[in-house]
């Protein structure tokens, strides 16, 4: 049917050609497979957690097992899915193409990044299957450094190693964005996905070393009894929390900023409009990256930190909410007088805006010290960060995977199923996590294996929602794989989108572009696209 054309998928065959590839697109697919594996493993732990919480008694698994389940759910989802998800898959695949380059600046480092990720992942999986770890993904001391009887060091080593993968990816993105842009591709012509990936890369490079050092110190105290965090050895347990959140709060923005970038691409394409307030959306990413480093203390309002430090962190936390709000308003305004279609990626994007808005606004409760004293470490917090990370990042990730799937695979996914799955995810998500806000204000603490009976109804609702959500996540996996074989041929630009990645064949050739493109237009030039179409009709 098609004339044979060489592209990045069929240019060579065999395991070797994949494991030694330096092509950013193939490395993106290696990451896609690895993180999908981790996503479903982390998801399986979540299923067990929700099943345990169906009844108030701790009856399905033992307390020790339950603690390991939520720890491994957190560790895997945060470090092995959310942080690498959009940057390492979509960023890797798209960043060079979006700026008109043939690859990232350091292709070998890019491959090394995947190997490091895999080795770190195997370490952590080894820890999981040899008995697991029960400290919570936050590794609070002195529990983790002295008292826990589980595989803390092995898990920490896994995370430590994987951190270097993040650093290398970040470094690669920064250098690529600075040095590899095609002629005419000025900073203010960059797609917003590139801006947000760039801001993310800065956080990765500056923040990740801090978590690496922190986990190293936990290991040193645990293995050699050198007093750093345990007061009995002359250490300070709060020091750990400062160091941990100095990375782990910015890490939230590593998770959500790339999602915001994806949404900017989707909203413009499916409303056929240039984004409203381009430079405000672009600079809000940078503002979030910078301010994100100054708010870590809002995790410590009730920790015994000075009340005045608490007030400063509270104030800065409110400030970081503003650039996020600016983005939401600009996306909404982009729809105004657009030409809006409801393809699956757009449904995911609208889902993102709705859930991220809820997640962001409930963040205000947690930034308000007097209210945080009550809801800190309750299900309110659990609900809040799942709205941001799952309602936000995972929605954007799925939207992005659908949107660029024709480019990645050369095939169209089944639109009807995809819209249905987007709807299922949205409904399942809200049913799972909305009741948890109410549970949190009622006072149900997080990380509880058993709970007072009056909290059961809301927990049953949450578990019911989780089962719907699980269906919503399995569906795309099934039909996307199906489409590789049976999907319709996509064509170079099925969405009629702007952006250099759509000006090359699907799937793209290994070198991306036959000739380096010269850019003479702004991003999201849908006005010109529409006129072009009109001329063709006439």
């Amino acid at each position, binding site marked *: 049917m098609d004339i044979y054309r060489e592209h990045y998928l069929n240019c060579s065959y065999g395991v070797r050609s994949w494991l030694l590839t330096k092509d950013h697109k193939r490395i993106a697919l290696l990451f896609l497979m690895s993180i999908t594996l981790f996503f479903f493993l982390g998801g399986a732990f979540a299923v067990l957690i929700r099943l345990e919480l169906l009844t108030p008694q701790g009856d399905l698994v033992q307390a020790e097992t339950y603690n390991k389940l939520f720890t491994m759910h957190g560790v895997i989802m945060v470090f092995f899915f959310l942080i690498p998800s959009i940057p390492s898959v979509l960023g890797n695949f798209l960043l060079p193409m979006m700026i008109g380059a043939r690859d990232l600046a350091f292709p070998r480092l890019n491959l090394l990044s995947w190997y490091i990720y895999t080795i770190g992942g195997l370490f952590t999986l080894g820890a999981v299957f040899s008995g697991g770890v029960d400290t919570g993904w936050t590794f609070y001391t002195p529990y983790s450094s002295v008292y826990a009887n589980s595989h803390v060091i092995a898990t920490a080593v896994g995370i430590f190693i994987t951190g270097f993968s993040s650093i290398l990816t970040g470094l690669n993105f920064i250098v690529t964005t600075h040095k590899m842009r095609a002629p005419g591709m000025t900073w203010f012509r960059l797609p917003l996905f590139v801006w947000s990936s760039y801001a993310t890369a800065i956080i990765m490079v500056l923040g990740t070393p801090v978590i690496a050092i922190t986990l190293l110190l936990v290991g040193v105290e645990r293995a050699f009894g050198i007093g750093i965090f345990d007061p009995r050895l002359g250490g300070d347990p709060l020091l750990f929390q400062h160091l941990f959140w100095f990375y782990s709060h910015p890490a939230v923005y590593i998770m959500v900023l790339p999602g915001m970038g994806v949404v900017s691409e989707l909203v413009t394409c499916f409303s056929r409009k240039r984004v409203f307030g381009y430079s405000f959306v672009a600079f809000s990413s940078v503002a979030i990256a910078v301010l994100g480093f100054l708010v870590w203390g809002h995790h410590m309002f*009730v920790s*015994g930190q000075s009340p005045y430090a608490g007030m400063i962190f509270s104030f800065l936390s409110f400030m970081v909410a503003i650039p996020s709000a600016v983005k939401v308003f600009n996306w909404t305004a982009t729809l105004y007088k657009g030409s809006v279609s409801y393809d699956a990626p757009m449904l995911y994007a609208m889902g993102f805006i709705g859930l991220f808005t809820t997640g962001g606004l409930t963040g205000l409760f947690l930034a308000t010290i007097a209210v945080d004293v*009550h809801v800190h470490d309750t299900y309110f917090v659990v609900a809040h960060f799942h709205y941001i990370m799952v309602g936000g990042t995972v929605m954007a990730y799925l939207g992005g995977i659908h949107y660029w799937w024709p480019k990645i695979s050369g095939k169209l996914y089944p639109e009807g199923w995809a819209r249905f799955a987007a709807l299922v995810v949205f409904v399942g998500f809200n049913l799972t996590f909305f009741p948890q806000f109410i549970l949190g204000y009622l006072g149900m603490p997080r990380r509880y294996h058993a709970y007072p009976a009056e909290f059961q109804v809301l927990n049953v609702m949450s578990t019911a929602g989780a089962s719907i959500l699980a269906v919503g996540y399995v569906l795309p996996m099934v039909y996307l794989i199906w489409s590789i074989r049976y999907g319709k041929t996509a064509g170079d630009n099925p969405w009629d989108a702007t952006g250099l990645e759509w000006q090359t064949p699907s799937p793209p050739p290994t070198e991306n572009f036959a000739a380096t493109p010269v850019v003479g237009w702004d991003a999201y030039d849908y006005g010109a696209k529409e006129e072009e179409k009109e001329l063709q009709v006439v």
Partner: protein
Amino acid sequence: MIGFPLFPEVASTIASGVDLLYFFLVAITVLFSVLIFALIFYFAVKYRRSPDRKAQQSEGGLGLEITWTAVPFVITLVIFTWGSSLYIANSRVPDRALAINVVGRQWMWKIQHPNGRSEINELHVPVRQPVKLTMASQDVIHSFYIPAFRLKQDVLPGRYVTMWFEPTRPGEYHLFCAEYCGTYHSGMIGRVVVMEPEDFQKWLGGVTEESPVQTGEKLFTNFNCVNCHATGALQRCPQLGGLYGTEVRLEDNSTVKFDEAYIRESIINPNAKIVKGYPAVMPTYRGQVSEEQILDLIAYIRSLTPVKEQTGSATKSTEGR
């Protein structure tokens, strides 16, 4: 199934203030969520794709950008000011607060009343009486959480933290550990029993136990503190009577408040802050004395009156050695 509450009980003086701010935040959240949801829905329907209309391009507008930066800024300033001032007001301990000690350990709360009555995983307090808890952990970090009072405070090993409340309604309320502390974290729960003052007095007097002051006095002798710190002893060490609550001058001429935290530190790490004019000769008691014993010692030291009035007995006790 027992009931299906959607809102927690209100049982402390600060709870309704926190709730009011919470409702304000809920209102802001609903307002903006509805605004965004409605706009997206309206635009998506009104400007849905159709063959006879094309998208109308726009670059954006400075006026709108300034508006939707400034409006959230002002709103967050209001919330910040309200939240912080409420927090500061809530943390001011009234003078007449009843002092109760709390020690957390894996996986129980041990509570000790001033008259010596102690309890585990239960805290009995009188209604309409401010209560100040002085808390420490024996092992990992715990968190003392009473949802009905809208109060929570992490309890740390190696230092004292305090929290106070004034219950407004008799009843029984949940007490949770809110900071993950190991295997039976979810079993580190109990109840706070708020009683009418006369019932509380009855409960408190129900058992005769040694008061912390008496226990502390024995410990003071058993640990040989008395050898140096008693009046008329070798005078190598400061006399402790009447010092509690005062500022003491240190070697570097700075001052430190002679309070629970300072006494505790001086027992565990005596050389950290040496009182001016005395040699650094005290050995550490780290590992020899439990958190409960430290609290007893503090109670005893607090009870000591200034030196002159008690010369006789103290001298006698040292001469005996």
